[in-house]
């Protein structure tokens, strides 16, 4: 590709792939979609140019009907696959979206943003449901497949300001209750900001990858499974 690729992903069926390119060197930001069954001399099946704020994160919508994109200005949009039009959008975040992830049944979308919050949306309507607040930019957020839990990973970028407290292993992954928006746990261990988090599909463990170059795989203690919020 001519410019850097920001995100990429397989569609639900695995028949399509999409990737987004950066807005640099005079080229606009674009979504490229390939039909793997029908590759004609390396040309994408569909290219959707993005004229507004560039895309910083993107995932496939459920059932391959649209692509969900997160932008540098905090907007989240739906782009229709067939027509390439923007069919929905919302601007709940004030700074760039660092990560978008879907829930296991694809009904909910969680966005992680540089504005120090992560927000939960209804995938189909982009209706804002919940907000999870922290003090640092959130680089990644994931939804547990089996519980109402959310994990957030983030941290101050080294290039922004180098005065975060230099206590060892201070960067942590934070667990919030999905419905109550309250933090109930933190896992320390990373030496640098966490850039990506993901729950294992069975919900019994999660992994986090960080700026420090480590990928940490954590298996939950029995107490995690017994933990209950009172309500």
């Amino acid at each position, binding site marked *: 590709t001519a410019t850097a690729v920001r995100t990429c992903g397989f*569609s*639900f*069926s*695995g*028949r399509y792939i999409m990737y987004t390119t950066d807005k640099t060197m005079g080229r606009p930001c674009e979504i490229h979609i390939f039909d793997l069954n029908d590759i004609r001399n390396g040309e994408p099946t569909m290219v959707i140019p993005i004229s507004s704020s560039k895309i910083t994160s993107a995932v496939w919508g*459920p*059932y*391959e009907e649209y692509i969900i994109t997160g932008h540098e200005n905090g907007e989240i949009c739906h782009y229709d696959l067939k027509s390439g039009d923007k069919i929905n959008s919302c601007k709940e975040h004030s700074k760039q979206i660092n990560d978008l992830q879907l829930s296991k*049944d694809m*009904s*909910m979308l969680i966005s992680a943003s540089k504005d120090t919050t992560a927000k939960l949306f*209804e995938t189909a309507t982009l209706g804002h*449901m919940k907000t999870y607040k922290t*003090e640092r930019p959130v680089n990644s957020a994931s939804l547990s497949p089996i519980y*109402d839990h959310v994990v957030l990973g983030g941290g*101050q970028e080294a290039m*922004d*300001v180098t*005065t*975060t*407290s230099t206590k060892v292993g201070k960067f942590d992954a934070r667990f919030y209750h*999905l*419905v*109550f928006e309250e933090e109930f746990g933190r896992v320390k261990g990373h030496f640098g900001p966490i850039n990506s988090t993901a729950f294992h*599909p*069975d919900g019994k463990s999660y992994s986090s990858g960080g700026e420090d170059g480590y990928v940490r795989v954590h298996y939950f203690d029995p107490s995690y499974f017994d933990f209950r*919020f*009172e*309500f």
Partner: protein
Amino acid sequence: NIFSDFDKYEKIPEEWEPPKPKPYHDVGNLRYFLQEPDCYDQFSVIYDGGDRTAIFKNTAREPVLIEERARWTETYIRWSPQGTYLATFHAKGIALWGGEKFEQIMRFSHPGVQLIDFSPCERYMVTFSPILSTQEDQQQIIIWDIRTGMKKRGFHCETQSTWPILKWSNDGSYFGRITPDTLSVYETPSMGLLEKKSLKITGLRDFSWSPSDNIIAYWVPEQQNVPARVTLIQMPSRQELCIKNLFNVADCKMHWQKNGDYLCVKVDRYSKAKKIDEKDQFKYSGLYYNFELFRIREKQIPVDKVEVKENVIAFAWEPVGSRFAFIHGESPRISVSFYQIRPGKVETIKTLERKQANHLFWSPAGQFIVLAGLRNMNGVLEFVDASDVTVMAQTEHFMATDVEWDSTGRYVVSAVSWWGHKVDNGYWIWSFQGRLLQKIQLERFCQLLWRPRPPSLLSIEQMRAIKKNMKKYTEQFEVMDRLRQSNVSTEILEKRSEMMNEYKSFRERATEEWESMKYRRLELRDGVDTDTLEYEENDEEIVEFLLKVEEVVVEE
């Protein structure tokens, strides 16, 4: 007189109309905040880089917002010394706000105002603006009467010295200012020079009022053969109460104890002085330090001397009591020493060594002190009980720029101001023992100021009686606390069950949708049902294979 005065005086009408009385503007109960039933103090917060100013109540779980306005002030804000008014700065002047709804009480027009000061009794306010304009004869320093809003007197100021230039006596009956070689004392409300004449003191460097009596302390550096001296004089009689001569003085700094019981003068002494060029400028070297402690309440004001080997970084009196503490030394060997003044001598209580501190903050109620290493010392905080000089807690608020005690001495706030540090702005609330109570983060938080309280109206006997009967009162408080806790938990539980119910209905819809779309999922993945993907347990397969052949010969 200005030219326009001619017109003004020509046009005086023949008939004189008596001025109409202005209707009384009732500002309401300005001290309503003292009647807060749970005794929560208020504090002001500027955040969003200065755009938003808010007043909060320091409630138990998190601060409750009382009032918030955007662009309330253009630069920063100040509380009046007894907490009655909130002053905001604007290009055109100052506005004072107060009362339950923070209505505007008074406006003062002084274009370009930069600094303000209040008289301790809150009757007068002084404003300073560096702009000199010939229109309307504007002066740089103006004294206002707060209740009427009238300009009482103005001054020009020739030199930009330290603010406040006009220093008030504690009851507001006098104020003074220094001009080269002169100390001018004025009396209120006439604003005229006391006895129509100033005090001529050659070489006068600095003066200060006692916080409780009408006594002025001033010092004069040494000139030719006359040693330096510190003098205390009584106002208005101008009687000299005490004079102390000091030798080899490079500089002096005066610190009054809050009750006016003691005055400490920190004296920088030199062992060698070299005159540079023809002017009376000296270069001092080989500096050493000592404190001269004046016992104001004792007859003839005896003076004690305490010598300090090292450079003194900070000094502070305990606000109620007779202790003081100071930080001395050079990084990294910095120590904090505590002294007690007893009848007859000044004794060291204890010295804490190897501390990271550059500021001292005593609790307004005394006994407790916070040693803080602010700004470049990364925000190290130590909470010390001065009665036995033990460290109660050692904590840190990374990159803290300010520390503020509330006026009752129960809470301490450490803050990271956006004006000093661009990230992590917010404030943390601690108990007086150093236990962290709350952490509040605010976007581009700039300044937090506690609302001061007027001095207590209780007499000493009444306060002693309350302390004796403390057990009775604590029972009542415990009951109230328990009630509040249970209220809070039921509130939380209710809120949570509401949220959960909402969420459950959403999940029901989502599950329905999921079920209905099953066909699509099968379609997309070629008929393979991937909804329940689990690890396949190892299928057991029974495989038979030949182990061995054994030939047994049966009967022949």
